[in-house]
């Protein structure tokens, strides 16, 4: 059993070192995330009551769009230098290797995104219980974004048609966005957010079980 765990961590460590080696791929989505958030006060006027109400929504939508941009990085470099073939043809199940890569993507993009999102939340004076709901929904939501995103990236890597990835992925992200936003709004008015959190964790568990297998199948199809 530890043979499989060992290979999981080898691939994970490899991807993390790769991410730290070329920082631009790792920092750009965060900068993009902050820039989108800055657009909204410019659009609505900085101190308007409307902005107060929308802040957590803006944070979540910017997180979603930033993840959308960062998804390409999971397989693009492997696809270009051919190591995706080596992964597909290794003796270990491709599902395991793919989940290692998706975990690496979440650690390099999802986690920093949550930290930066919370910082911007503080700066934009979001009330504390909304911050808590924002943190929980982001913690449950961003892995789902990475997992489902990996399927679509595996299908569309290297294809012409630039926005194809976002066109395919955003409809699948809507349930996560809907439940997160409902949880955040309930938290702002002090109601319990248990229902939405249950649903989000349900979607997360579904994504964890089904997404890696589908990504492996999608990769095999894309390589054929």
């Amino acid at each position, binding site marked *: 059993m530890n043979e499989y765990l060992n290979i999981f961590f080898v691939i994970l460590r490899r991807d993390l070192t790769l991410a730290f080696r070329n920082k631009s791929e790792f920092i750009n989505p965060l900068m993009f995330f902050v820039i989108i958030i800055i657009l909204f006060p410019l659009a609505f006027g900085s101190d308007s009551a409307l902005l107060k109400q929308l802040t957590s929504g803006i944070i979540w939508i910017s997180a979603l769009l930033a993840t959308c941009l960062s998804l390409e990085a999971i397989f693009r470099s492997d696809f270009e230098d051919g190591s995706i073939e080596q992964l597909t043809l290794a003796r270990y199940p491709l599902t395991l290797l793919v989940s290692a890569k998706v975990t690496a993507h979440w650690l390099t993009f999802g986690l920093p995104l949550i930290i930066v999102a919370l910082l911007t939340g503080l700066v934009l004076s979001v009330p504390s219980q909304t911050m808590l709901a924002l943190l929980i929904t982001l913690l449950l939501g961003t892995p789902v974004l990475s997992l*489902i995103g990996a*399927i*679509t990236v595996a*299908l*569309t890597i290297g*294809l*012409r*048609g630039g926005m*194809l990835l976002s*066109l*395919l992925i*955003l*409809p*699948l992200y*809507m*349930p996560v966005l*809907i*439940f997160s936003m*409902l949880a955040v709004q309930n938290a702002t008015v002090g109601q319990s957010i248990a229902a939405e959190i249950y*649903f989000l964790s349900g*979607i997360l568990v*579904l994504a964890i079980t*089904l997404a890696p297998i*589908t990504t492996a*199948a*999608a990769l095999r*199809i*894309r390589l*054929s």
Partner: protein
Amino acid sequence: MSLYKKCHRWFHQFASPKYFYDISHIISKYAIVVCIICFIAGLYGGLILAPADYQQGDSFRIMYVHVPAAWMALFVYVVMAVAGGIGLIWHIKLAEIVARNSAPIGASFTFLALVSGAIWGKPMWGAYWVWDARLTSFLILFFLYLGYIALQSAFEDRRVAARAGAILALVGIVNIPIIHYSVEWWSTLHQGSIISQIDKPTVHMSMLIPLIFMVLAFKTFYVTSLLIRVRTEILEYESNTSWVKQLLRDYKNVTN
């Protein structure tokens, strides 16, 4: 010969393009006839015979386009996912062709459902687009269709495109109930559920029969449109086989 072996042989025989090409002519003849009859019956029943609804007056007659279109939008997506799955697992070329050619028809049904739903909303709720739960789910379904079609056209090799499309359709099928339920949850929280009670007209028997005719008409229409597209693609696929060449020669005497 055991039952399993018999239907296994029949399944593979049915899946051979040549056999399907000949059969499809017969099927589409019947389908066209049934389709026209159902359309006439449905329209006549729906527009003329059915009494006006006590609450909505005559505007409920849009239901005879909206409900069948919406039903077909979901039905075609399921057919696409199932056919894609069969093509993916058993590498049956015919299933891939059926899946790929169902997408545009499904997309136009979804578009029809959206437009009719929006126009139906105007007399009832006063605005064309009223973020009603069902309409929003169909809007997302419309984007799932557009994504599928865009993905198909992004690949040069058709076989790979079909299998990639099958994966996307299967992922979509898993997501449709989640999307639908989350949108329902979202819309009941925002608008309150009063609105969704009104627009379900108390369906009186004389209103229901035309509706069934219209659904049948849409289904047979789907079959006819699909068969034309599938036949064209079979010809393209099998263009260098002898039976297609022979067919093209015979066809030549007919046209010129």
